[in-house]
């Protein structure tokens, strides 16, 4: 399957899609890495025995 000809302004079209791709990948990577770091820090604190009141009893505690 060949990509159709993008004409004389192909550079602008490809640059626009590159900006979109880089921005989307950037925000996805940032959110995923942020989530992993937060999970690790939470686990470290809980491993030291620090817990919210009632967090080990019922699953519907407010953060």
């Amino acid at each position, binding site marked *: 399957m060949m*990509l159709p000809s993008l004409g004389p302004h192909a550079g602008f079209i490809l640059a626009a899609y590159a900006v979109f791709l880089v921005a989307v990948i*950037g*925000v996805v990577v940032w959110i995923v890495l942020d989530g992993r770091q937060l999970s690790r820090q939470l686990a470290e*604190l*809980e491993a030291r025995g620090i817990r*919210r009141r*009632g967090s080990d009893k019922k699953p519907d505690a407010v*953060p």
Partner: protein
Amino acid sequence: MPLIDLANPTRFLGFVGRLVPWLTAVTIVLFAVGLYGAFFLAPDDYQQGATVKIMFIHVPCAWLSMFVYATMAASSLGTLVWRHPLADVSMKAAAPIGAVFTFVCLATGSLWGKPMWGTWWVWDARLTSVLVLFIMYLGLIALWQTIEDPIRGAKAVAVLTLVGAINLPIIKFSVDWWNTLHQPAAVFRLGGPTIDISMLWPLLVTALAATCLFVTLQLLAMKNEIKRRRLRTLRLIEASRPHAVAGTPVVGAAS
């Protein structure tokens, strides 16, 4: 599960865990279908040639830049009026995502404007009002960072977000109210779309894909924000018990 149960952060986290894989799959499929239609089925524009292909990412990002802000404004009401536990979490999570969509809208618009208008940028009403939206997103992100207590920060951000919502109708109607290089609305207008169906359907599919992308990212960012607040609570508990014996469980009230 009743919808009201999702107001509970722990149940919300479980819901996010189940929903995100499905949403991710739907987003990828919709982007694949939409971009296939854009590049292989939709014709070039009779005036703009192949540069019209920029529309299939520029327009969804433009719509989302406003949709995300509208979501934040609705969340602001949830914070100020109903004090919903997830409203300010939603508000804070959405701001960076909205800023990214607005940045992509501005950048791709500039890349489309140069070959078609002969300039990267003009200070007309549509472009300037979208730039103001981008600056507002950055301002709201900065405001979140300046106030440590998330509850106090949420109230300040909610008020500022609602004030800034006045920019949304200005963006929408700027092309009707003032002379501008930017074309008027071609899809959501009285009298129906002026864009041909061969270009309209890939545009609507990519817009739906971008919306699914936003919802996926928003849910993940909300999950992170809930974790961040739990982390803050645990650190406060730890700080308030400086003499706790190592290995002894320290249990405190949730803030």
